[in-house]
């Protein structure tokens, strides 16, 4: 009855789209292997990416432009743009991913 472990191809980086795809002060969820990653364009030149999964109970988070925070709708958890918990029940900050611009592409990769 216990599901067998199914090995997945390790994903170290993904191309998240073109730099012009995302307007400043907006965010989108990107597939990173089998998990979502939240990519945020903070301003004209700065992008950030965090795991898209809330550290509380596994819901998928979203970027809120009005408050410039990351929000989990399930239990009203808020994180700031550094991934740190601002309010609500999440117990830990969001894991950060590295974002770099390669030509016209945005590339997200694991840190360290």
């Amino acid at each position, binding site marked *: 009855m216990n599901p067998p472990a199914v090995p997945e191809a390790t994903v170290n980086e993904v191309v998240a789209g073109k730099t012009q795809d995302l307007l400043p002060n907006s965010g989108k969820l990107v597939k990173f292997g089998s998990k979502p990653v939240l990519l945020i364009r903070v301003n004209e030149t700065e992008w950030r990416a965090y795991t*898209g999964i809330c550290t*509380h109970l*596994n819901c*998928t988070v*979203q970027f809120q432009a009005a408050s410039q925070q990351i929000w989990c*709708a399930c239990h009203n958890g808020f994180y700031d743009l550094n991934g740190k918990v601002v309010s609500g*029940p999440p117990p830990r900050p969001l894991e950060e991913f590295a974002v770099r611009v390669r030509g016209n592409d945005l590339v997200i990769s694991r840190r360290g």
Partner: protein
Amino acid sequence: MATQLKTLKSRIGGWLEERLGLAAIIEFIAHKTVPVHSGTTWYLFGGITLFLFVIQVLTGILLLLYYRPTATEAFESVQFVVTRVQFGWLIRSIHSWSSNLMILTVFIHMFSVVFLRGYRRPRELTWLSGIALAGLALGFGFSGYLLPWNTISFFATKVGTDMAASVPWVGEALARFLRGGDDVGGATLTRFFGFHVAVLPGLTTVLLAIHLALVQRHGISSPPRVEEKYRQLGQQVPQMPFTPNFFLRELMAWYGALAVLGVLAALFPWELGEKADPFAAAPAGIRPEWYFLAPFYTLKLIPAHVFFVEGELLGIFGFGLLMVWWCLLPFWADNRQGRERTRLVTGAGVLMIAYYSTFSILGYFK
């Protein structure tokens, strides 16, 4: 002609009697009685629950004819049922509404047993089997909620299975077992379908048989205050025959339940929502079914950390303790001298209802 018919009837009756022993069953039913007092109406809710369960089995079988339990087809198959199949929308609506009404009647039945003191010796096992059946009813609700594979049910299942993962030591294994993998996905859907249509119905049938057999074995209890009142008068608690008196009342209650169900299902068809997208953010206003709202809202309120303990873990631990305490009610309802802790039991029942309804309302509106 009439004589021949009478002889045939008698011969068939004799044939069945020899093989089934129907006379003993008829004799038993004929002598079965139900206590008559101001709380007799509450006894009807066990039967209404059973009636709604039968409706769910029947409508569930009809839905099974079209439902496909895979992540790529589940939503579309339900969409097909509600848009293309003749009266499919009504069958699905009846199935969903009757499940919710059944959970409601389970709660009413459980609390009426508490307030009428129906759990007392020698009915402890009847109480425990009833509590297990209530747990199975919630299991039906939780597993069935995911089956349409819509956004709300997807995230509710994510939250629910992640709560299981918080259980110390066995949590991760339990969550993996429930999800059929590391995360909620197609494997979870197939698994939940299996639980919903095979495992849970099987367990429910066995437990229901035990529960009903225990009710027959011990009869229906009278509240102590009623027993005491008639003891002082030197009389027995008045009884009414189960057949036909109580059974006809039960039948009228079923008619009532069917009317309520029909109105709700026809005028408020159960929504299908949007297809689940595992890579979409949880939408605003997300919440589980009403009967899970109280724990859902409680988890919202518990801070991330309480001293050195994670709030989530504390919440799970608290719910666990509360459930164990509630299940063991017949064993702490009497003190060591064997005297009933009437106030404690009533207080516990009132507090449970107050907590559950207040937090459910807050969870719904906040």
